[in-house]
């Protein structure tokens, strides 16, 4: 394992120190490993918090700021944060209008956020609503699994619900927007290489020089199937077709098309992938209202990409276009 780190046990704490120094307009609670807005809590505004294991940067801490999250809890690498963090974050951002917890659907994340909500209910008057994202079509959604994983849609949801909260919509309204985004978004990813968890010291899985892992999880969880490596064109079809079939997306639908880099794949390849995705959508008469191309929800140094399609209406598009000022996403301000 070769990484630009010191002791694997200190990676998250030291990255937070670097983050704090690089982004003076944001605050960091180092004890609780929370990144939060300097102006939190904003009275009358719904507080938006999320969190999860580290190693997915810029998600979630890089999405804290005006128009997106009010706070993000950083767990150990690929490990959900603990309830104490989420409770502290909830208190930090509660401006009286309630707090929305954005939770990716993983057993650990769900259980820790659940405990945090229980504690918040007991310790504070804060009204907390949780929205769980589960957009990964690589996992079959059945009582036989922990349900679909929350992946790319989480990024789009944090932007769109964040904009709704910035408009001072009520907690129920913001939660509604968030649920609508999750309900209308689908994703799937592929890995060309594994990632290496610093504390583990070796790759989570092994892939041959001509293999790829289709439907991989963002924590390096093995995916749907291992296939021989393909061209960008073939891989785009393997990712987009199951997404289109699942919602389903149909001719005339407007979508936000998101091609996400897993961390180790260069931007030039993501543009090649986006070019393939866009051509498939054009062929189906699916209109791309907006797009996002880049490494926004990564898995350490894993090489690969994921595609997320979100069916949008005008309200969602204007919320997407609304100003956002975070280290990871910024426009209009």
């Amino acid at each position: 394992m070769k990484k630009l780190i010191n002791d694997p046990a200190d990676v998250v704490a030291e990255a937070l120190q670097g983050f704090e120094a690089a982004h003076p307009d944001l605050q960091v609670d180092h004890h609780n490993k929370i990144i939060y807005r300097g102006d939190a809590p904003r009275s009358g505004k719904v507080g938006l918090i999320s969190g999860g294991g580290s190693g997915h940067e810029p998600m979630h801490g890089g999405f804290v700021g005006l128009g997106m999250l009010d706070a993000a809890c950083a767990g150990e690498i690929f490990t959900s944060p603990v309830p104490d963090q989420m409770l502290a974050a909830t208190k930090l951002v509660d401006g009286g209008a309630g707090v929305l917890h954005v939770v990716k659907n993983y057993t650990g994340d769900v259980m820790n956020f659940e405990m945090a909500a229980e504690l918040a209910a007991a310790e504070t008057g804060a009204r907390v609503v949780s929205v769980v994202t589960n957009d990964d079509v690589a996992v079959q959604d059945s009582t036989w699994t922990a349900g679909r994983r929350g992946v790319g849609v989480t990024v789009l949801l944090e932007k769109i619900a964040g904009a709704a909260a910035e408009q001072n919509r009520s907690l129920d309204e913001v939660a509604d927007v968030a649920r609508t985004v999750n309900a209308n978004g689908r994703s799937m990813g592929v890995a060309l290489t594994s990632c290496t968890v610093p504390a583990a010291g070796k790759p989570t899985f092994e892939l041959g020089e001509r293999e790829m892992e289709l439907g991989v999880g963002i924590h390096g969880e093995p995916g749907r199937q291992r296939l021989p490596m393909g061209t960008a064109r073939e891989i785009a079809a393997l990712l987009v077709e199951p997404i289109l079939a699942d919602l389903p997306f149909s001719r005339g639908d407007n979508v936000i098309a998101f091609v996400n880099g897993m961390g180790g794949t260069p931007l030039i390849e993501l543009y090649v992938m986006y070019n393939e995705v866009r051509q498939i959508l054009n062929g189906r008469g699916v209109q791309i209202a907006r797009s996002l191309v880049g490494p926004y929800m990564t898995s350490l140094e894993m090489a690969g990409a994921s595609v997320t399609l979100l069916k949008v209406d005008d309200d969602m598009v204007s919320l997407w276009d609304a100003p956002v000022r975070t280290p990871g996403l910024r426009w209009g301000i």
Partner: protein
Amino acid sequence: MEDDVTTAALLAWVRRFADLVAANRDYLTQLDSAIGDADHGTNMDRGMRAAVAAVEEAAPATAGALFTKVGMTLVSTVGGASGPLFGTFFLRMGTSFGGAEAVSPKDFAAALHAGLDGVVQRGKAEAGDKTMYDALAPAVTALEQALDEALPLPAALAKAHAAAVAGRDATIPLLARKGRASYLGQRSVGHQDPGATTVALLLEAAAGTAT
């Protein structure tokens, strides 16, 4: 009563469990790499180190205080799935002991059962889901039976440990239906569950302590 379980013995159990987790840290993480995300050993080791430090500092006088402290520390330091699960397990044991000064073997078994119930409430796992439950549930049953057959605690815990090991090994052929491993479907078959492996270490520590 002479065969009561002392708080010191229970503390020794917790310590021994922490040592076993530390010794098996990389092995547990390795198991989690195959069907999870390669952090179970790191998670449990971080948590049990913190738990031992916490109880050493707080020096709880009663079993109830001891396990409540261990549970709270795990919840606050582990994260992931195992944090709430193992945390709840110990918290419920603590509640079960309450403020009692003396802990009889039956009290111990009852507390273990309460811990199991807590795990089920938190994680909704059922037998055969390929989780820590599949090692913990048989261990609790074996302990209760052995005590009903009036075996002394050490012998009973030896049986409980054997049951946990059997339950752990039995997870290998199972298809995971809970947790991260469930994403794998058929590909989860043939791998031993990390959490069940940790539970076997927990019972190994108990059997090794009660002698």
